[in-house]
């Protein structure tokens, strides 16, 4: 399939259908507004429900559905190539479709129930409606997955050319050490996202008080995860391959005895691993992904592969090959 044909199929599911669904939902809900009560429940809380203008429902759909569809569309558009779609691209498209259905459908259902004034049992506890919505949206998302062309098999483990061993004298000892770093632009982006989350947390604490512990825990968790995964110290020595996070943890180790071969591969984070960080890719490939481009891939004896995006991957692969050959 050509790139443009595939892009059209994916974007139809990820962007065009969600936009159409959102538009229909907005039109239906706006049509209800003249006869609706002046205040409807817009937020269900543990202690009390909040009410607001019924126009909040179509407004929410009109903002969130196109916004998410555009984000999913960009993520897909950046990575599509001619041929078959990657499973990640199909997943993004199916999730975009499913999520727009859920938001639009739930909004229509919840506003529809409250359209007529008066007490209503369903609206006091809409859990059943929400669960039903999630189930239906998920089922249709699965349907969207199968409606798309079959996914590509992806890069297989150990696809690279095994490195030639570095010439080492009999008693010679060697160590290869390098830092796998995240490009500054990406770090700036991540810090920006973090600041937004932190600002959200601050607002949450101001509004909800200390009860909202989750909004405090979340940014702290994200800071720790970022700090540990934006840089990796990668080492090849006679114990094998070791990669440890910037703070010394987490630590990943491939013992020399488990190494079948080492090679230099080219990594495209979104296509091969669905993103950056500590990643489980297709075909039993595990990745520490900080950037696109050159990476060291170690094929293990059990067929799994360990990938880390690091400069001078050729040097690391050659030393690993030499150490394996010597055992």
């Amino acid at each position, binding site marked *: 399939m050509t790139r443009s044909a595939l892009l059209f199929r994916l974007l139809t599911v990820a962007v065009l259908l969600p936009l159409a669904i959102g538009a229909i939902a907005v039109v239906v809900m706006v049509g209800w507004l003249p006869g609706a009560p002046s205040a409807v429940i817009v937020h269900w809380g543990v202690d009390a429900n909040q009410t607001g203008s019924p126009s909040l429902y179509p407004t929410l759909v009109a903002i969130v559905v196109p916004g998410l569809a555009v984000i999913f569309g960009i993520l897909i558009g950046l990575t599509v190539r001619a041929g078959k779609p990657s499973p990640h691209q199909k997943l993004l498209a199916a999730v975009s479709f499913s999520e727009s259905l859920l938001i639009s459908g739930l909004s229509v259902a919840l506003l529809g129930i409250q359209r007529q004034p008066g007490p209503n049992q369903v609206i006091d506890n809409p859990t059943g409606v929400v669960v039903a919505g999630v189930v239906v949206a998920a089922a249709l998302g699965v349907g969207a997955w199968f409606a798309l062309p079959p996914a590509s098999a992806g890069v297989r483990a150990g696809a690279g050319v095994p490195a030639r061993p*570095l010439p080492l004298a009999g008693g010679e*000892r*060697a*160590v*290869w*050490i*390098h830092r796998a770093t995240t490009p500054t632009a990406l770090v700036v982006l991540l810090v920006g996202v973090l600041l937004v989350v932190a600002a959200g947390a601050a607002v949450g604490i101001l509004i909800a008080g200390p009860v909202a512990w989750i909004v405090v825990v979340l940014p702290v968790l994200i800071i720790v995860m970022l700090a540990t995964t934006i840089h990796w110290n990668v080492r090849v020595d006679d114990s094998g391959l070791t990669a440890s996070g910037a703070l010394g943890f987490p630590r990943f180790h491939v013992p020399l005895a488990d190494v079948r071969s080492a090679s230099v591969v080219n990594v495209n984070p979104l296509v091969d691993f669905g993103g950056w960080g500590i990643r489980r890719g297709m075909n039993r490939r595990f990745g520490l992904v900080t950037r696109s481009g050159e990476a060291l891939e170690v094929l293990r004896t059990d067929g799994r592969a360990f990938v880390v995006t690091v400069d001078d991957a050729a*040097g690391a692969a050659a030393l690993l090959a030499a150490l394996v050959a010597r055992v």
Partner: protein
Amino acid sequence: MLLRIDPLSPVPLFEQLAASIRADAGSGALRVGERLPAAREVAAALDINVHTVLRAYQLLRDEGLVDLRRGRGAVVTARAGEYSSLGLAIPQLVEEAKRLGLSAAALTALVTKEYLS
């Protein structure tokens, strides 16, 4: 970066380590501003004394190839860029020696003689 030592070689270990790092600077594998690995990590991986590694780093500091700063470790200076022309000349030299059938020792002797003259 690749660090290698041969315990059987008559050259002191710290000299061998320093030579490894100079070679990386010459080949461009070591960039300006890059930090050398922690001496502790290198010592553990090569099973040598940490003071041996520190002595190699101090030797390179005296040559101006790295800056030693407390808390920052050993940072490669702009001098590393100047090593690249040397890094280009050496393979040519070795290739020429091999063409003539000279041993490594013979080439080293020639280079030493030229250096000291």
